[in-house]
């Protein structure tokens, strides 16, 4: 275990507890759902209420992150990548992180209810419980499929955004859910191919640890093959227009190509050359860009009147 001396917590430590990078992606996808819902359904939301609902999603994401850091403090201390986090570094006491997570959970759900409706608040509460309890406490240390099932937690934000506007969660919202759900395994497994020794040290049964690097590369390829066409489904339902369709096709093809390169490589194997590790790193970085760009296109099309319908013969 990596030992750190006790230091005084700063505001930055509490911000770090909320996993700000994950929060940014969560907020971004929620905003995409919010914007698309207004354009597709014709319903409108008071802009101040929309900002408060977005803030509630951010708080909820931060709350789940704090609960995750509270529960995983022991394994975070073992892994080099996470040993500098606020709890293992000694800046924030564990119980303080838990209290922060629980209070923020309540506040975020309440805020969402006040700003929108009960369904959006319920979905937000569900996604916090999904990540903070179901994934963190039940799945992560028990099954190599932890990422696959746990991916549902990160997929909720666009549905929450949609529900905040319309009070319902139609098929289009669940298509966005499915895209993030299918995106999570290749995204995270690309990272775990690089950090599998750390996970083994912490006894976390990530796929490369439990089934080996080759099985992980196979799974990355399978999920990428499913993800690329799934990214185009919004065009079929009319949610995505010309701009979205072209972007999803190009980025989907690039995603497949990078996944194929990882599949052909020896990334994650004990004696993998540096060039192969670079391929896994490349897929990980590109996957973030892929999701960001796809949802950005939805915002551009529906929020800035750039929607051109695609006619399917």
């Amino acid at each position, binding site marked *: 275990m990596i030992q750190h001396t006790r230091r*005084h*917590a*700063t*505001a930055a430590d*509490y911000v770090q507890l909320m996993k700000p990078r994950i929060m940014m992606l969560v907020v971004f996808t929620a905003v995409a759902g919010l914007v698309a819902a207004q354009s597709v359904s014709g319903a409108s939301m*008071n802009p*101040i*209420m929309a900002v*408060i609902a977005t*803030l509630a999603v951010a708080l909820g994401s931060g709350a789940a992150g704090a609960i995750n850091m509270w529960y995983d403090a022991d394994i975070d201390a073992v892994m080099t990548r996470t040993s500098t986090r606020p709890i293992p570094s000694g800046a924030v006491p564990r119980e303080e992180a838990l209290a922060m997570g629980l209070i923020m959970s309540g*506040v975020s759900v309440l*805020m969402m209810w*006040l*700003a929108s409706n009960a369904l959006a608040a319920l979905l937000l509460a569900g996604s916090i419980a999904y990540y903070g309890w179901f994934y963190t406490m039940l799945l992560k240390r028990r099954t190599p499929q932890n990422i696959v099932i746990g991916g549902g937690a990160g997929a909720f934000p666009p549905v929450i955004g949609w529900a905040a506007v319309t009070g319902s969660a139609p098929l289009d919202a669940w298509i966005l859910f499915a895209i993030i759900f299918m995106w999570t395994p290749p995204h995270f497994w690309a990272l775990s191919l690089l950090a599998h020794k750390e996970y083994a040290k912490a006894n976390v049964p990530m796929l490369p640890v439990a089934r080996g690097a080759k099985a992980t590369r196979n799974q990355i390829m399978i999920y990428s093959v499913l993800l690329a066409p799934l990214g185009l489904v919004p065009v079929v339902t009319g949610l995505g227009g010309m701009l979205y369709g072209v972007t999803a096709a190009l980025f989907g093809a690039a995603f497949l190509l990078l996944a194929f390169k990882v599949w052909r490589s020896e990334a994650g194997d004990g004696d993998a050359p540096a060039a192969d590790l670079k391929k896994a790193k490349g897929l990980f970085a590109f996957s973030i860009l892929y999701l960001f760009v796809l949802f950005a296109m939805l915002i551009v099309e529906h929020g800035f009147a750039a929607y051109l319908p695609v006619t399917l013969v």
Partner: protein
Amino acid sequence: MNETGDHPSANAGQAEERARLAAQKKRNMWLALALFAFVVIVGVTTVIRLGDADLSKDGGVYWRNDPQPREQAPMPELPSDNDADSEEGPV
């Protein structure tokens, strides 16, 4: 001993205590700000909700200010003079 006559470890302890209090004060300020922001948000949402709500209708929020009149039972019809003629009187 240092120039002020204090033991170095005592100085270090005081500095540590000062740093702890400073950090605590900073955290408390952030907490106060967060609480204030929450109160403002609740206030703003309430004002907007009340502004948007149509309180004159049954579906308005929080209260109902158009109580419906109670339904009255129909008045029984009084017998007319003709009806009285046609009826057989006491013999």
